[in-house]
């Protein structure tokens, strides 16, 4: 897609709060946008390095809790007479902390778990998310457990005599859109760099990647750190938007939602998580609006998912791309490229 087209699209999206006055729709767009950022971060791991992290929501949740706690302040008793605490800090600072903490967690998990690959990594990532959820549920002094952290402040950016508040939906929508564009640019630059080439190489054929001199583990860790930090940032956005956070944020279904967005949109493509995110973020709301029974809504959602995966196994974006390129090529009388077989080990 050309740069101009993208700019027009972004400008169009930025103009949404001007003409969309129904806050309910704006709310749907905001939540969808936050999930798209999370899905994009997952795509960096799943799509570009080929590692399926089924615990991705852990980074999202860690970001959400970190940001909430830093902005609210906390005090915990670690030993009978040792207390660790922190006074409330500005929200923008809390969000940066959330990004950093999630990134550090990603580093630790990457270092630990990339000794194992494939199915074992999937298991490690699920277990990690579950452990974090149990901590959030049971460390009541820090997290309030199931009582949830509430009254989380909204983001305000203050300059001299001028205060910008992101309490209202139109402003928050623009914030999410900005973050989405920033994350997109970061990922695009990363995957088109030397590091990105290395990640794709190791996804396609790990032993071959090693034999051309790629430090496989190092790039896996880089991808995990960036991915985790981005997911943490998305979690922080979510926290300061919803303004309440409880352990349910670590539910497995959120990871599944992100995976569905990435896989249906097209893993390993830049636009894939956005397309998948728009479809699976908005479809449930559209179905809800149709005033059909909830059971039927979920069935329709499931059927749609099965259809996409069945007919477009590589995802929506690659399907469109190969359709476009086959149309471009057809007049020249060249054979349409057949998708190569997956590399065997």
């Amino acid at each position, binding site marked *: 897609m050309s740069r101009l087209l993208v700019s027009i699209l972004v400008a169009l999206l930025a103009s949404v709060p001007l003409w969309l006055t129904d806050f309910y729709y704006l709310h749907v767009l905001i939540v969808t946008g936050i999930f798209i950022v999370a899905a994009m971060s997952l795509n960096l791991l799943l799509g570009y390095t080929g590692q399926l992290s089924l615990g991705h929501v852990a980074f999202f949740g860690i970001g959400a809790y970190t940001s909430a706690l830093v902005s609210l302040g906390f005090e915990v008793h670690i030993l009978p007479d040792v207390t660790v605490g922190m006074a409330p800090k500005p929200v923008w600072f809390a969000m940066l902390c959330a990004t950093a903490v999630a990134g550090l967690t990603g580093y630790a998990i990457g270092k630990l778990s990339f000794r194992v690959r494939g199915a074992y990594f999937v298991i490690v990532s699920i277990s990690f998310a579950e452990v974090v959820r149990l901590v959030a549920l049971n460390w009541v002094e820090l997290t309030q457990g199931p009582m949830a952290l509430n009254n989380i402040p909204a983001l305000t950016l203050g300059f001299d005599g001028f205060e910008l508040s992101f309490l209202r939906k139109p402003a928050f929508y623009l914030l999410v859109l900005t973050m989405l564009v920033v994350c997109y640019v970061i990922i695009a630059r990363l995957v088109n760099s*030397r590091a990105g*080439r*290395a990640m*794709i*190489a190791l996804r*396609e*054929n790990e*032993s*071959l*990647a*090693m*034999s*051309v*001199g*790629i*430090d496989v583990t190092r790039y896996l860790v880089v991808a995990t750190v960036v991915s985790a930090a981005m997911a943490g940032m998305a979690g922080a956005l979510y926290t300061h938007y919803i303004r309440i956070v409880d352990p349910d944020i670590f539910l497995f279904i959120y990871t599944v939602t992100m995976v569905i967005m990435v896989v249906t949109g097209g893993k390993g493509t830049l636009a894939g998580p956005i397309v998948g995110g728009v479809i699976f973020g908005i479809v449930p709301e559209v179905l809800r609006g149709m005033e059909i029974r909830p059971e039927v809504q979920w069935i329709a959602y499931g059927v749609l998912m099965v259809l996409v995966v069945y007919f477009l196994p590589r995802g929506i974006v690659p399907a469109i791309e190969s359709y476009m390129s086959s149309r471009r090529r057809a007049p020249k009388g060249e054979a349409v*490229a*057949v*998708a*190569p*077989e*997956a*590399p*065997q080990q």
Partner: protein
Amino acid sequence: MLELRDLVCRYGKVTAVKGISLKVERGQLVALIGTNGAGKTTTLKAVSGLLQPAGGSIVFDGVDITRASARKILSLGIAHCPEGRHVFPYMTVEENLEMGCYLRMDKQEIAGDFDRMFEQFPRLAERRQQQAGTLSGGEQQMLAIARALMSRPKLILFDEPSLGLAPNIVERTFDIITGIRDAGTTVLMVEQNALAALEMCDHAYLLESGALALSGSGRELVGNPHVRSAYLAG
């Protein structure tokens, strides 16, 4: 140039290579022949660092590389062209070649090498923007060889270069490998097609169940009665 001393490699409890010692002299084309499971591929993997040997030592140009990483070994000048003509299927021909010089930083020289590769392999030039997975078997093999050459190796390891290729392509592949040796790059090649390998090599080693059974010039091995009956069918 390359010397293995009592190399031992294990997969778990199975010992695949049971103490092999061999030498590859500079400028030679050395063949490693033997049946399936003789330990040929394992030996190559140990040399290129894709596998950690359990014992013995590997010395390249006076440097002990027994426990070195694949990255380090490549930067010392050993390229590995793995079995089954592995390419990165969803990358274009050009990107595959770029991966071959991943460790090189000399951009100008790389551009020259690209031109040379495309000159040497005109089929690849025609298909430089095509995904490698869509190439024919022979083209993929050419690409794998070209990619290995892009790192400007001093020693290049070929693992079963003829595997699964049409006979005319096999011949062409062997010509290319001989050409690489003639251009001054040392070659260590594992090959099941024993006759062809023995005819083209300067020196050969025969492996049998993880141990060295015979060594000598290609001609000597072709003349050996054991080799004749077991590997050259009569």
